[in-house]
């Protein structure tokens, strides 16, 4: 899978896009399954959802936020390169967007960990 290849930003971005994509897909299945608990009554649903407010799940939520954020920002970058001819500025674009999303990750995961976001 990882061929002998000179690691450039595009290669790193590509590998991380696939990794985060698979991770978010796992979450999608878990999330949709959780919604079936709406059919088991109020207590069952609230118990199922409140499990996610335990510290371990809060950390997992922060990781999920990071994965979704990266996947979304890098996806927008791919569209800019593919459809809007941003290939010439691609390295600057990559580091600019990664810097902005790193800042958003720090802020967002702090909100999640501090329980400001449920």
């Amino acid at each position: 899978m990882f061929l002998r290849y000179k690691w450039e930003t595009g290669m790193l971005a590509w590998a991380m896009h696939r990794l985060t994509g698979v991770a978010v897909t796992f979450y999608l299945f878990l999330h949709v399954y959780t919604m079936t608990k709406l059919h088991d009554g109020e207590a069952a649903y609230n118990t199922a959802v409140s499990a996610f407010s335990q510290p371990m799940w809060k950390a997992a939520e922060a990781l999920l936020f990071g994965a979704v954020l990266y996947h979304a920002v890098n996806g927008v970058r791919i569209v800019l390169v593919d459809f809007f001819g941003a290939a010439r500025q691609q390295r600057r674009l990559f580091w600019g967007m990664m810097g902005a999303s790193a800042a958003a990750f720090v802020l967002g995961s702090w909100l999640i960990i501090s329980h400001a976001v449920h």
Partner: protein
Amino acid sequence: MAVRATGNAGHWSWYFQRVTGIALVLTLAAHFAVNHFMRPPEAGGADWAGSLYHAAVLRLSNPLYKGFELTFLMLATYHACNGLWAIGRDVVTRPLARTALFMLIVLAGFALAVVGWTAILPIDQDWLARGAAATQ
């Protein structure tokens, strides 16, 4: 230089992955904002004491929002399956295994859609009253 789709199946897979990707950035932002930062309109003021269950049911009993959530689910299911298959095409080389993996991904996608629709679709204005009656 911008790239264009040329018309074979692989190109449509590539093209729709970008179109649904952009749509998902927008719909996910809306989904996240509504579910985490907004009180359901029916819930009233800041002194509302409903549980997460009440909030979820109130939101989903709105046909417009339910339609939005189901659209979001369809977009996410397609995008996830198309993405998994893009990885599968690269990693799995034996023809039989490729076909089997493709069918597995399609099946998983259908299962996800069916579970999601059956979970959300029946929730309407009377859901809370029916739930309360059932537990008595």
